[in-house]
């Protein structure tokens, strides 16, 4: 289960808001009360491996199961945080960048190095195994 001391740190890591950005009334309304205790399903390691195009031996499947379960449980702890009164944020950070990139082209000047690093290059194409099914 969850150690209470972990929660404030988790909160900070997930959203390093700049002080003063949110009204203090909102910031002080965090609650440590767990809200939902929905049981998480055990990970289907075989399916995950297939989706990630990774081959695993049966032993590895057994090894990874509990590890993945641990990671999922760790995220599960975040669900216990009461965010009812918190403004939703699309991103962890809200630091502003005032000038995104201008649309002016620049040719990468070391194309030779990229081409050289391609494992199988068949000038001018990159050679790959014949794959017809996208899904």
């Amino acid at each position, binding site marked *: 289960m969850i150690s209470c001391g972990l929660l404030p740190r988790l909160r900070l890591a997930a959203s390093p808001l700049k002080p003063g950005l949110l009204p203090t009334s909102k910031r002080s309304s965090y609650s440590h009360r767990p809200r939902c205790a929905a049981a998480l399903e055990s990970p289907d390691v075989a399916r995950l491996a297939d989706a990630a195009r990774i081959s695993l031996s049966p032993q590895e499947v057994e090894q990874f199961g509990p590890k993945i379960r641990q990671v999922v449980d760790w995220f599960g702890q975040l669900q216990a945080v009461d965010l009812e009164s918190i403004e939703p944020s699309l991103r962890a950070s809200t*630091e502003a960048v005032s000038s995104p990139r201008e649309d002016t082209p620049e040719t990468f000047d070391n194309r030779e190095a990229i081409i050289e690093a391609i494992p199988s290059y068949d000038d001018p194409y990159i050679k790959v195994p014949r794959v017809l099914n996208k899904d």
Partner: protein
Amino acid sequence: MALFIFRGFCANAIILIPKNGAFLHKIRPKRSQFEVQARRSGSTEARPAQKSSQMATRERQQQQLQGFEAIIGIETHVQLQTSTKAFCRCPYSYGSDPNTTICPVCMGLPGTLPVLNSRVVEFAVKLGLALNCEISMKSKFDRKQYFYPDLPKGYQISQFDIPIAKGGFLDVDLPVEFGGGHKKFGITRVHMEEDAGKLVHSDTGSFSQVDLNRAGVPLLEIVSEPDMRNGIEAAEYASELQRVVRYVGVSNGNMQEGSLRCDVNVSVRPGGQQEFGTKVEIKNMNSFSAMNKAIDYEINRQILLHKQGQANQIVQETRLWDDATQKTFTMRKKEGLADYRYFPEPDLPEVVLTDEYVDQIRKSLPELPEAKRRRYENMGLTMQDVLFLANDDDVCDYFDSCIQNGAEAKLAANWIMGDIAAYLKNEKVSIKEIKLTPKELAELISSIKNGTISGKIGKEILNELICKGGTVQGLILEKDLVQIVDPAAIEALVDGVIAENPKQLEQYRSGRTKLQGFFAGQVMKKSKGKANPVLLTKILQEKLNAGN
């Protein structure tokens, strides 16, 4: 990590907190000043002459459906005409040598970071507004995972749950020859994403070839509501979308080059049934007419299966349109729902817009095709004229400029759609390239209207004006083309011709009155085409009949 603020490049922390927690502000483009209040609900009125054919077309469509209803939705990818790719500075131009416009970012090499091209956001907002959408003042990018060699990173940067624009619509006037009518098709969403590279499958070998020039090129995906019911409606939706992207200048909309690609979902259900039938996706249509045909083929294929009691043979699959055989065929069956495992793109900040930024873009929007069509319709032009002119914004600019120079709308439309369009087609040039200025076309029209030159002479000098330029006044003086409207001068010409042709005169007077045409031709020839035809006919008739 950071976020982008689009407000003319000046940061302001206040905007970081959304108003009332709402991310969506309803912002719609202002109605064009030309648009009239008298917008018809439903369809445009059919002109009496077209009514019968229009009804016949509708009846035919109904008969073909045989009690079934087809539901069509379209996903369109539009390649943006930016100078650089979406997340790196690589230039992109169609037809470059393979793998020349690449860099570590678009190659998906480890350790690289994407940086968003500001123009992509600008174009997305532009198109969103042009499609009457709500703009998301805050949106974000997500990773869409799939494994395919044209996608070097193993995921595509796209937008999943918060698209930059949603909930719009597109107005379409169906072509007169297909029954006409006005339709409104819903736009579900518009989102930003990157294109993948190009994969070339060798015919024999066990390998494929990849060109990553296109990888990372910015796209907008426009998803329609399932509002279309047949091939024509779908093709017209797509062609209106093409007009809009061209009008607002976000894409060249070229289907052959793949700058505008449509994936169409088609399903069929028995009339009265609430739930949708199994939907089939069709790809590989590189023209609007191919779209129309592919969809109608697919609808018929599905109806046939329904009628044969084989509706279970309609499966979720992707079918390709084959132009050669005029059929769709299975490319791949879909097994279960694709699991793209979307998650927020951690390498890119959220995209935050300000009202000021969106306002600026809204103000920069040109008059859109729908507004143009309504304006032209109100000038009294026929729907055929309206659709022709509004199809191309260069033609619109030319036509509008003629009107501003005093030309009568119907006459200007006739010249543009007739002789000028024929010239453009023959010479394969755009209206911007011809030497005849709108001002001179207006001058030509008024010179004919006020009788300075005859219509025949007008047609004759048109070509010279198109090819060489110059002014109508200049040509009239130079070539001595002023129409002869002096009755005495015409009478002299007529007298001359009659005197020179005593035999024909005798024949005329003994009953061969058709010879009047011969005399008229001779007089016109003698006047070098300048005799006013009305006066000529009148005087000639008097003279010919004088001896009786």
